[in-house]
């Protein structure tokens, strides 16, 4: 890196954030943070923060995009297509970060293989971490979408099936069944993520769960422009980040958790005490040691009642009770399941030879790792295998967890659950 500083005419490099996957391009710089285009990574001050997730420079590593010239060298090595006629290709389920990253990683090594991407949402490309900081960073809602699904599909040469539910996998015929017909696959990649869990006593029609852009936009529309009372049930990462951000947006937050303090997973690192201290001037009331037993809508307002008899009357209720992986597709394909779709730690292959999986829906030895950093590496591993390139073994690394509580960002280590 010192080398690049001493040789300004050298080719511009790119560096990727280990926490969120943001790519710093020397050519573009980061003008919002005062880094002019052409600023070498080595010349960035040490206190510079990732514009997306606010980790610092030390969490960035050199990022080497795959040279398009290697595509041709790689492509012929792929396995011959099955059956008659045209190549069947790859079908990807899910168009979050994992799904699109998967498509991109395949395109990096194979310009021609047909890719079909099936997603229940619109397929629009956005950075999920921004949903936790949008108010603090004054990001306009219409700026959250970086690229529409249709644009991304066209750029990558992907057949996008948006607003389409994948309903079943038939492994015998290698067919994915969807609400818009059936799609044969040579290789199937599951990147459908996880769903926000909803405790049984919280009614779905009264409680928001924020795990994708569409739900977030609908919540913001429901909150409107004036300050509202919001109860957030669950003070883990997502609950705490949303509380922080919505409070900065002027809303009055009641944050409830069964644990005595927020971010209880990181009790040893005193994370809870630190955020409570940072929140002391924000309209956030944390109520610990409570479990919510009912949520009712009475005269247009939500009445949240705890088991110990406390009642909170608010305008909106958000459940942030963690994630769970939907098992419909895995079950139909008889995939090994261990708290999520079980994959081989090196190849990310499921128990079916033609099905790989990545992102929030997988577990390695029963452990999910629902962070952004591993996704790009996972996608490269799978792309190398299914396109017949030199294997790129996946390496499980503990994630850097950045708590995007902008009033006091915390960097924590991933803790096994």
């Amino acid at each position: 890196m010192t080398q690049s500083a001493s040789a300004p005419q050298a080719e511009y490099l790119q560096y990727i954030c280990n926490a969120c996957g943001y790519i710093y391009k020397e050519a573009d710089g980061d003008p919002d943070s005062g880094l002019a285009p052409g600023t070498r990574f080595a010349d960035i001050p040490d206190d510079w923060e990732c514009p997306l997730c606010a980790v610092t420079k030390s969490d960035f590593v050199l990022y080497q995009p795959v040279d398009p010239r290697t595509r041709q060298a790689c492509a012929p090595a792929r396995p011959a297509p099955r059956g008659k006629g045209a190549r069947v290709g790859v079908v990807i389920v899910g168009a979050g970060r994992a799904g699109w990253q998967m498509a991109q990683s395949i395109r990096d090594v194979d310009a021609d293989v047909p890719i079909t991407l099936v997603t229940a949402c619109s397929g629009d490309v956005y950075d999920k971490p921004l949903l936790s900081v949008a108010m603090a960073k004054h990001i306009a809602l219409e700026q959250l979408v970086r690229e529409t699904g249709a644009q991304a599909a066209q750029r990558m040469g992907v057949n996008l099936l948006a607003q389409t539910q994948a309903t079943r996998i038939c492994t015998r015929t290698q067919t994915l069944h969807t609400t818009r017909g059936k799609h044969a696959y040579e290789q199937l990649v599951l990147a459908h993520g996880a769903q926000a869990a909803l405790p049984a006593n919280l009614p779905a029609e009264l409680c928001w769960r924020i795990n994708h852009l569409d739900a977030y936009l609908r919540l913001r529309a429901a909150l409107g422009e004036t300050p509202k009372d919001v109860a957030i049930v669950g003070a883990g990462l997502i609950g705490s980040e949303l509380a922080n951000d919505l409070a900065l947006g002027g809303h009055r937050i009641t944050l409830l958790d069964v644990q005595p303090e927020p971010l209880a997973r990181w009790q040893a690192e005193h994370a809870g005490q630190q955020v409570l201290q940072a929140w002391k001037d924000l309209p956030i009331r944390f109520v610990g040691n409570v479990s919510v037993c009912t949520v009712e809508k009475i005269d247009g307002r939500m009445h949240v009642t705890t088991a110990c008899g406390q009642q909170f009357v608010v305008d909106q209720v958000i459940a942030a009770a963690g994630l769970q992986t939907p098992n419909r597709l895995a079950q139909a394909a008889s995939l090994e399941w261990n708290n999520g779709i079980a994959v081989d730690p090196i190849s990310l292959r499921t128990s079916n030879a033609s099905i790989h999986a990545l992102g929030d829906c997988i577990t390695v030895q029963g452990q999910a790792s629902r962070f952004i950093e591993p996704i790009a590496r996972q996608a490269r591993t799978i792309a190398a295998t299914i396109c017949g390139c030199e294997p790129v073994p996946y390496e499980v690394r503990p994630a850097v967890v950045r708590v995007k509580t902008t009033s006091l960002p915390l960097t924590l280590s991933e803790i096994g659950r």
Partner: protein
Amino acid sequence: MNANDLPKDIAQTAIQQDLMGAVRAIAQGPLAQRAQSIDQEGLYPQDLLQQLAAVGGMSAHLDQAGKPGDYKAAIAAMAEVGKVCGASAFMMWCQAVCGLYMQSSGNPALTGERLQAHMQGLGLGGTGLSNPMKSFAQIENLLLKATPIEGGGYRVNGTLPWISNLAGDHYFGAIAAVMDGDQSAGREVMFILKCDAPGVTLKECPKFSGMEGTGTYAVQCKDLIITAADIVADPARPYIRTIRAAFVMLQCGIAAGIVQGAIDSIWAVESQLGHVNQYLDDRPQDLQAELDDLVGRVMTMAETPFDTSTEFFIDVLNARTEGAELCLRASQSALMHQGARGYLMNSDVQRRVREAQFVAIVTPAIKHLRKEIASLSAEELPA
């Protein structure tokens, strides 16, 4: 030839072998004789339906003294008939779901003698739930309106198009929007509508491309009076939730029969035409493997027909969709395999193509099923 490639009898999965033997004897005997006239001349086979009912072919799924309902047997019986005549399998389904409405109504006026007569085939009936099902899925509006009358009961007005398995003295399950003056009262009532009740008129339908002979009429109601003795459920919606999976699941029997009939007709010409048929898509062993897989899943679901979970209902809708799609492919493939002989107007092969098209468009049609699966799969959030 591999033994695994031979046509497998769907009925093997049924546990009531006596019932299956009796149903098969009727299907392959008198019904096979008459299948063409049912289709071409539109002859409603009332006597054969009554024979099928008399041997228990349309009531196996209903609880009887000492014998709990068996959905697997009911589906297998329908499939056995569907191999020979899709229209008759469809009428069996009409009769079967009408029995389901009556039994699960809990209304003593429907569960007593009327149900006994229905199970024995002394009474025949159908179902008018196509319109309400589409209404609940926001596809169309309810066509019947029920206005409460003094002393209980309702006055019903409106016209339902295309209700099957009807004749002058038959009856069927219907749903009407309950009215409060000119406005909807926000609920529905389900009842058994008797075709010979004052105010009810059956109107002949235009000729369809297939499924003639199914006793299909438009039903006009003018000030029809419904009393407590006719009520299946009031309000109807919570009740529909409990029977919807069973209702859709039973239809899989029609599809299974049509697909098996198509596969059998492919094998029928294999020794003569196999040398050239080998070049076709959707060969019989491929279709059979798909059918066996589908029937296996349906039979597993048939063990818990009243599971009200959303996930289970999605599984049922998936199976129903696949049944319709497989019907289309198998019947088309059978025509390709049989060639000109299957294209003759007296061939069951071309008739089956039209029967398969019916399975794909009758409520719930493939498009309707997919819309429903999409909407049930979506995460429910505050409005």
